[in-house]
């Protein structure tokens, strides 16, 4: 498995290859099985978790809205052919009715219900992404960043714009939050070295507050990030 290394970082390629291998290893699905410290949000028990005729996005939305303290959830939806295409018509549907299960067990059940996806942990974030992402080259979220700086950014949207121009041929964008909020409590300046785009996006989201979520979605050429404090909504057909 190899990840894309931006041209600007090739001056120290051997070092970066080693770092990249570590990064890729740590976002692999097996990381989701690692032992967590006590009080991990993954160990929080959810009394009831019910989704009916759902797609994965619905299930993750439901989980994100459970208000689990400390849960930072990132979801990379499989990018559609066109942004207008309805994900509900392109995606497996399932129902889950779980009681007294941990967040970890619910994530496992969701990824089992739509086997195209896997999940893993990165620091205090949980990522759900296409299994194919590890084989797809180049896949934006797996790409490696040698160094990236955000300066006095007021919100997550402005933070992610720092990615623009980093990776030739990779379209970068973000969606409006609607009535949601992704502002920072104060302008944020930070520097990150040797991390994947996924990890960078996790850090952007984690900085918003104690419980956050982000979604990468859209169509080819018109895809973007949506950052929100708390959980995210999903389209559900009216019953």
């Amino acid at each position, binding site marked *: 498995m190899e990840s894309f290394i931006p041209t600007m970082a090739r001056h120290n390629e051997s070092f970066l290859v080693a770092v990249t291998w570590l990064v890729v290893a740590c976002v692999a699905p097996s990381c989701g099985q690692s032992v967590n410290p006590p009080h991990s949000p993954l160990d929080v028990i959810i009394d009831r978790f019910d989704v009916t005729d759902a797609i994965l996005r619905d299930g993750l939305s439901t989980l994100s809205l459970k208000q689990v303290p400390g849960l930072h959830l990132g979801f990379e939806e499989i990018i559609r052919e066109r942004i207008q295409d309805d994900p509900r018509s392109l995606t497996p549907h399932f129902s889950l009715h779980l009681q007294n299960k941990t967040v970890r067990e619910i994530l496992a059940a969701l990824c089992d219900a739509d086997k195209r996806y896997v999940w893993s942990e990165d620091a205090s974030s949980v990522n759900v992404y296409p299994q194919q992402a590890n084989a797809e080259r180049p896949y934006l979220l797996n790409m490696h960043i040698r160094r990236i700086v955000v300066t006095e950014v007021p919100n997550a949207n402005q933070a992610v714009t720092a990615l623009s121009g980093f990776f030739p041929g990779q379209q970068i964008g973000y969606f*409006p*939050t*609607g009535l949601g909020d992704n502002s920072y409590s104060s302008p944020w300046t930070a520097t990150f070295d040797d991390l994947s785009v996924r990890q960078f996006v996790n850090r952007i989201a984690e900085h918003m507050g104690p419980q956050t979520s982000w979604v990468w979605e859209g169509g080819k050429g018109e895809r973007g990030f949506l950052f929100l404090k708390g959980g995210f909504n999903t389209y559900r057909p009216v019953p």
Partner: protein
Amino acid sequence: MTQTDNEVSANWSSSVQAVATINTNGYASFRSVGTSVITGTAKLQSVENPSCRPQVFQSTAPATVFDVGATGPPYIFVGTDTNEIRANEYQVTNAAHSALPQPPGGTCCAASSDPSDSVTLTPTGNNPFTFHIGTMDQSATGGDRTLTFEYVLPDGEGTSVQLNVTAREFAYLTNNDPGNDCHLQYGTNRTYVYTVYTHPDRNAVVANDGLVGTAVEESFNPPLACMGTPQNGGLQLSGGISDNVGSLCSDSPLTCTQTTTQSLSVAGYPVRTNTLQWGSSGVVYTNNGPTQ
């Protein structure tokens, strides 16, 4: 003190002079909060046969001086959102709103002149008595709703106070004219800040109304095609709404086009529709009201 005529003598007394005194004519003066037992005694003496034993009649009754008031906003908000119910809060206190109602030891209840309103005594015990009012009915005119708060002592003595309030329903919005905050090459990203107004008073919701978190929802007809899923929110600390409207903000050209109607509601009450038109340059926003 005694008042006499040819046939009857009568006198009155008060058991607690600090609370009430009573003059020779039987008129009471109330001096401070508390309860005093007023005793009236009448003695009937036969004029024709003065040697007969007089008949004595005596009666007692409690006389209570209350110090009771009620405090809360001059309006309540229509709806079932828990944040609204919490804001529609009234407390039964003394008249100066500085202490518990006096004399102490009583119980309290409340009622609205609209029988469909709900009245809930919060579980704070009686320190102080706190009521939450719920209503689904907007006032026709300002102050047309009467809230009555009763305070009753264990001996049955009681009093009540009333407040006239307006039941306000979320009705319409005004907004700013924000600039484009998309700093990539394509698309628009504008944050509309709305002030929420209510009927029938046409007043703005303000921070002191304590409605933060009251549900604000948006829906689109037809459903959104050119961007992600609509996200709901709540009233902000200011009492207003912040809505981040835009297209994908991108470093590559946009191709998705769509025209849709955005409907905004507060606590389930429709307050605004906007036409949003997505195109290659972003979103064109048109306010369709209502404006008042």
